[in-house]
């Protein structure tokens, strides 16, 4: 009888320890983030101010991207005048991916022309947003490019 009780005791101990170890839930691991590289980043966003042949003020915006990542269809050019808040950026144009080289955008809007300026200069901000091919994924927006256009 006592041996039987001891066996029950040992079995209960075994069951308890088994449940204790097996009952624990394993924590899930984080997945590898893919949104950073789904669409190539905008690199070396630059601008140059010049004049067209007809004498209009021109801002040339250029940028580069990682050409080893082919998942990019186009870029959205957005611009903001004297305001850096995210809501102030207005889409200007969609630039398709060029067959060779890097894309660029020529901005000769009326607001950049001296005769329409009410102040001596305006602060123009550009932001470029890449668009992917797969799932039309909208990629990481570029840093804001600040250009000061002076009246001449």
């Amino acid at each position: 009888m006592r041996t039987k009780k001891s066996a029950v005791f040992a079995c209960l101990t075994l069951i308890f320890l088994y449940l204790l170890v097996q009952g624990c839930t394993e924590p899930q691991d984080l997945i590898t983030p893919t949104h950073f590289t789904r669409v190539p980043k905008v690199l070396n966003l630059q601008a140059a101010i010049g004049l067209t042949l007809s004498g209009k003020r021109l801002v040339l915006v250029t940028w580069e991207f990682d050409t080893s990542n082919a998942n990019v269809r186009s870029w959205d050019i957005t611009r903001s005048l004297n305001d850096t808040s995210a809501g102030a950026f207005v889409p200007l144009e969609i630039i398709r991916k060029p067959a060779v080289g890097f894309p660029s955008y020529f901005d000769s809007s009326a607001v950049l022309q001296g005769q329409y300026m009410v102040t001596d200069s305006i602060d123009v901000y550009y932001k470029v947003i890449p668009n992917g091919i797969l799932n039309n994924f909208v990629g990481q927006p570029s840093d804001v490019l600040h250009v000061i256009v002076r009246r001449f």
Partner: protein
Amino acid sequence: MRLAFVIYFVIVLFISSTASARVHTPPFAGQDTVRADRADTIAQSPPQLNTWSDRRIVSVVLSTLIPGSGQTYLGHTEKGAGFTLATLASGLITILSENNIIGRNERLDELKAQYDISTNYIGADTIWAKMVSTKSILDKDVRRRDLFLKLTVAFWVANLVDIVFFTDDKGERTFGLLETGRTTFALVPDPKNGVNACLSIRF
């Protein structure tokens, strides 16, 4: 963590085998139960550290199932209550942490699904930040659960070690009798008469 469990397991098996070996020691007659001769006294039996009676075996089984109950059964109520409360409190925190882990895992699953179908960087980055935050909390839950799980097992093992090696049998206490004095006085509320004063003297 698994190694710790193996160590605990070996300790408990050792205790179990020790208990089994000691069970075969024949107790002397009349040791199992000591009955109270008088109603207002508690019968005391001599310490029984090295012999095993049915009461000791029952106490070990009780302590295995509910830590501290064996000690209480043998008459060590404060120690038994301490073991019971400590083990149950640690176990409760372990269960709550485990429940949190299950919930955070489900939350991570949900966020992964949202992350996979996100169509823009800003949305995906927001979901990713939530995933990182959830994972951070999940890791804290896991650490808390492991700590209190070890504590629970430690209390449980300590309870078994105590009941096997260090707890003597204080003897059987007759049910329903309190250690009251010979003379008692009490004010008993009565719905008809207000309060009754009761004086009891036991001869």
